[in-house]
């Protein structure tokens, strides 16, 4: 049991678009950080510690906070850098939780960001596999032979999508529907990247097939953006804001690294849609949060879904329904903004993907929905408990956080 109640008292987001050539990394981050200071009513001098992270291969800069943190008010303060690939933002938020829960720091600013346009995104992603590919070249493998198996632009997601569709009965129409739902939600979110108001599943179905079963319309964009969250004790949060969002629990689970087509992987990819580590992380988080029946107790979910099938797959892996039930739940309308358990009200990662920030933005959306600060995309039902998720690594890392409008116990 945490020493301190932990709460979110502020959230800040930068503008999210594909290319922010008008600002550098530190300035982009400042947009999120200054918004967070403002809506929590604090100044840099009030912060006890900073947690930060991004996925540095995308910018081509090692430890950007070395010269950037002064712009955020972090010089002369404790600062911890946490980076875990696609889950980075979630891991940074978890760091914010632990820093406060430990009793060591009262007021902690967690910052996650990515400025993909500063680098070459495909090159950035390739660096995930480059060392392993180098090993295969050393064995005399033809690069074209490797490329064919890698899954091309959409990587391992195609394999995961086909195994998920087989096991759940999810159809390509469901994928189109997920994309339409998310992009319509994104249209109501001033901080989202791809806004497509009125987009229909039929229009998504007409986009180009990248690699079976994934179409262009099922895939996230590459985004520049930053997110900042203020974590503090419950007591201080109640003084700062009318309605803080409490962090009930965080949990992560890491499985064996698994790269499709690359030797030396473990069992994680035998069926890439199993995502056992997501189920374990979710079960741990619910247990710590004192949640016995997530299906009844969770009011809102922000799964990490850069690809359409993942919204449904992770809904199941977050233990919000039985395996194979998510497509029918989508059809029922329950996942809509006015549904029983709205999913990806922010528009999700499929609409906005500033990689290092994405997993934090899931936590941020849950917090803002609980705080009632979501404007047009505020869900209809009252949100008491929400679950935020992040996914990454070589399909092997999952992070989960549970937030609530009331403190733990």
């Amino acid at each position, binding site marked *: 049991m945490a020493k301190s109640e932990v709460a979110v008292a502020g959230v800040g987001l930068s503008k999210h678009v594909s290319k922010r050539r008008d600002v550098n990394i530190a300035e982009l981050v400042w947009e999120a950080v200054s918004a967070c200071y403002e809506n929590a009513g604090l100044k840099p001098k009030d912060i006890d510690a900073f947690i930060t992270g991004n996925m540095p291969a995308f910018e081509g800069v090692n430890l950007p906070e070395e010269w950037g943190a002064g712009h955020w008010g972090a010089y002369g303060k404790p600062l911890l850098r946490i980076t875990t690939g696609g889950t980075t933002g979630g891991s940074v938020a978890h760091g914010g939780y632990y820093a406060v829960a430990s009793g060591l720091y009262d007021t902690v600013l967690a910052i996650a960001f990515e400025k993909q346009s500063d680098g070459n995104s495909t090159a950035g992603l390739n660096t995930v596999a480059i060392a392993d590919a180098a090993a295969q070249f050393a064995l005399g493998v033809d690069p074209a032979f490797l490329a064919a198996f890698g899954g091309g632009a959409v990587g391992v997601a*195609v394999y995961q999508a086909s195994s998920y569709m087989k096991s759940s009965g999810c159809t390509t129409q469901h994928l189109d529907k997920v994309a339409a739902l998310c992009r319509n939600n994104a249209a109501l979110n001033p901080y989202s990247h791809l806004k497509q108001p009125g987009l229909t599943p039929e229009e998504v179905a007409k986009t*180009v097939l990248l690699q079976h079963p994934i179409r262009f319309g099922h895939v996230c964009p590459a985004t520049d953006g930053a997110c900042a969250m203020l974590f503090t004790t419950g007591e201080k949060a109640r003084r700062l804001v009318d309605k803080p969002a409490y962090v009930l629990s965080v949990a992560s689970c890491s499985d064996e690294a698994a790269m499709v087509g690359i030797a030396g992987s473990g069992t994680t990819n035998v069926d890439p849609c199993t995502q056992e580590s997501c189920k374990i992380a979710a079960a741990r988080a619910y247990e710590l949060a004192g949640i016995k029946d997530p299906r009844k107790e969770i009011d809102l979910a922000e799964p990490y879904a850069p690809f359409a099938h993942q919204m449904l797959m992770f809904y199941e892996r977050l233990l919000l329904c039985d395996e194979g039930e998510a497509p029918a739940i989508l059809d029922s309308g329950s996942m809509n903004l006015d549904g029983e358990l709205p999913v990806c009200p922010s528009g999700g990662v499929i609409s906005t993907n500033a990689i290092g920030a994405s997993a934090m933005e899931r936590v941020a959306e849950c917090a803002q929905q609980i705080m009632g600060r979501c404007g047009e995309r505020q869900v209809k039902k009252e949100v008491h408990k929400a679950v935020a998720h992040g996914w990454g690594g070589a399909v092997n890392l999952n992070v989960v956080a549970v937030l609530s409008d009331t403190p733990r116990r």
Partner: protein
Amino acid sequence: MEYKNETVSIEGGWPMEHWQWKFESLALIRKTLEALREKKLLGLKCPGCGLVYFMPKPYCRCLSIPDEWVEVKDTGTVTTYTFTGAWAYEGIADEGPAGTPLIIVGIVLDGTDTMTVCTLSDAKPEDVSVGMRIRLQWPENPEGKLEDLAYCVPL
């Protein structure tokens, strides 16, 4: 002061050629590849938990070191698949798939616990499914290369 009217982009790079990675897996994989010449499939078994890795892996999740070579069968099960074609590499076209689709399957060979990828031949995209049984299609004269494992056929 208004300073955001003009920005400059500066070139930079990540000189990857300076990194020299080390892999125990290379030596292990070479042994497996060498055995392909005799149409033998060698997996590596973990003494701690009994998992059989194909391709071989130098360390196990249970903190033991897999060290027992075991011969595995050339039959197996499809756990996932995709198909691809020229359209996936030549950008985005309106008129859908071009050429003959290449069917890529993730397979777990009988007697092993890990997945490897392979091309499914003698089948159409609509025939492939998760759970289908396959057999590796050996080349006439295997050369001890990863390409020897390029094809499988429905069983």
